């Protein structure tokens, strides 16, 4: 029982009365909550306070890093060789694809110039590692090891090798919290790659399920259709794969079809993700149109 070690001196006369403390700190809490919730007035405060939290993340991380280091150092040679072969093979395939991609990018740029639409294609990426800490059990969020010091900003798109992962929700000095597209409060504007029908893919709070509630029963969506980001939110750049349609249920009496999709990004298996700095597609202004008239003189800068 607590009594055994309790200090038994009288508690009267030890600072301000309890009620006053409760009142004061209660008001402060509510004010802080409102400020943080409405428009993020406390982003800077969070930035610096999270710097104080990073040692705790580091302590939690250490055993995992040590384990990774150990398994890495004692990996046997044959395994490394097979892994190397696999990677070489993958690289070859990727190179071939990239060749075609280069040609397509060039063609795309030319076509855009013809249409005098100057959409930025230059993008910068940075690899971030997912820190192995658990956040809230009923939300889909992860913490990554890049923060404001690396130029990470709120609302930044996060991808992996297979598709859209989510976006940055909170930024700290050297860490950031990413909300995944499967979180119940997240939504990505998408279009069906086959025919361009636009919709919104909402997270469901389940691990491998997105729901598309705003597709009418008549809309042409099939099982297996690829969904790509439409770029209408000005957060996710257009054209990145989001998911594949897994289920379409049409009920003639309803207005909307029941459409579900599976995210393409490996949300539950990723160790590393890609942060993306994309140039926002500018609205074609008169100056931009003039510049676009002389493309031959200025070769396009890639990356």
């Amino acid at each position, binding site marked *: 029982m607590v009594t055994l*070690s309790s200090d038994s001196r009288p*508690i009267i006369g030890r*600072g301000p009365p309890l009620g006053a403390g409760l009142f004061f700190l209660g008001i402060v809490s509510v004010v802080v909550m409102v400020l943080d919730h409405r428009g993020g007035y406390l982003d800077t405060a969070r930035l610096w306070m999270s710097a104080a939290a990073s040692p705790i993340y580091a302590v939690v991380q250490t055993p995992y890093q040590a384990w990774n280091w150990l398994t890495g150092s004692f990996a046997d040679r044959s395994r490394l060789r097979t892994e190397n072969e696999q990677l070489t093979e993958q690289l070859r395939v990727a190179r071939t694809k990239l060749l075609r991609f280069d040609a397509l990018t060039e063609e795309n740029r030319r076509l855009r110039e013809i249409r005098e639409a100057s959409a930025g294609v230059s993008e910068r990426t940075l690899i971030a590692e997912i820190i192995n800490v658990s*956040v809230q059990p009923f939300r889909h969020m992860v913490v990554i090891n890049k923060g404001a010091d690396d130029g990470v900003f709120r609302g930044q798109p996060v991808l992996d090798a297979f598709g859209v992962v989510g976006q940055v929700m909170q930024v700290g000095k050297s860490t950031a919290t990413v909300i995944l597209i499967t979180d119940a409060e997240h939504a990505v504007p998408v279009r069906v790659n086959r025919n361009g029908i636009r919709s919104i893919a909402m997270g469901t709070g389940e691990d491998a399920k997105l729901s598309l509630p705003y597709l009418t029963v008549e809309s042409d969506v099939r099982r297996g259709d690829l969904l790509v980001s439409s770029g209408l939110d000005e957060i996710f750049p257009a054209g990145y794969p989001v998911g594949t349609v897994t289920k379409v249920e049409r009920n003639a009496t309803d207005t909307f079809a029941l459409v579900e999709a599976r995210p393409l990004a490996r949300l539950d298996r990723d160790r590393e993700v890609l942060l993306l700095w994309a140039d926002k597609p500018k609205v074609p202004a008169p100056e931009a149109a003039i510049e676009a008239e002389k493309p031959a003189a200025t070769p396009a800068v890639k990356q």
Partner: protein
Amino acid sequence: MSVSDGRISRLRVTVTVIIALILAVLPLPRWMDIARPYLLLLLVIYWSLSAPRIAGLMFAWLCGMAIDLLKGTTLGQHALAFLLVSFLTHKFQLRIRIFPLSQQTMTVLFLVFLYEGLVWYTDGVLGHPVTTLARWIPVLTSALLWPVVVGILDTWNRRSR
């Protein structure tokens, strides 16, 4: 205000709080993650009972802010809930302290239930309600952990008097 409260030093309180913060973000398998007890809240109750001069309302509030920060919730949400629990503990400190362990556990169950209720309510106000029943599991596991926490910390406090 003296640096030590009877036999209990500030250092000791700080060390337990840091351990609890680490355990709060330690990655666990999904089923364990859902049932993860609120160790820091139990510590706040424990220290409020046994070292009220060190663990005042401000201490509880700061612990709540730390949880908000680590868990990525809206700042102030857990701080408010910690504050409420700490207030009630201080208010009825003299009574709760002499309760037998079983009755103390029931009181803690009630306090943690209040805490979860307040967090649940503020979740709803802030627009991201989590209404699944599973969110109430930590209330039970926390109450079950209380005798263990008391056992360990009392032993530690008694040994190094």
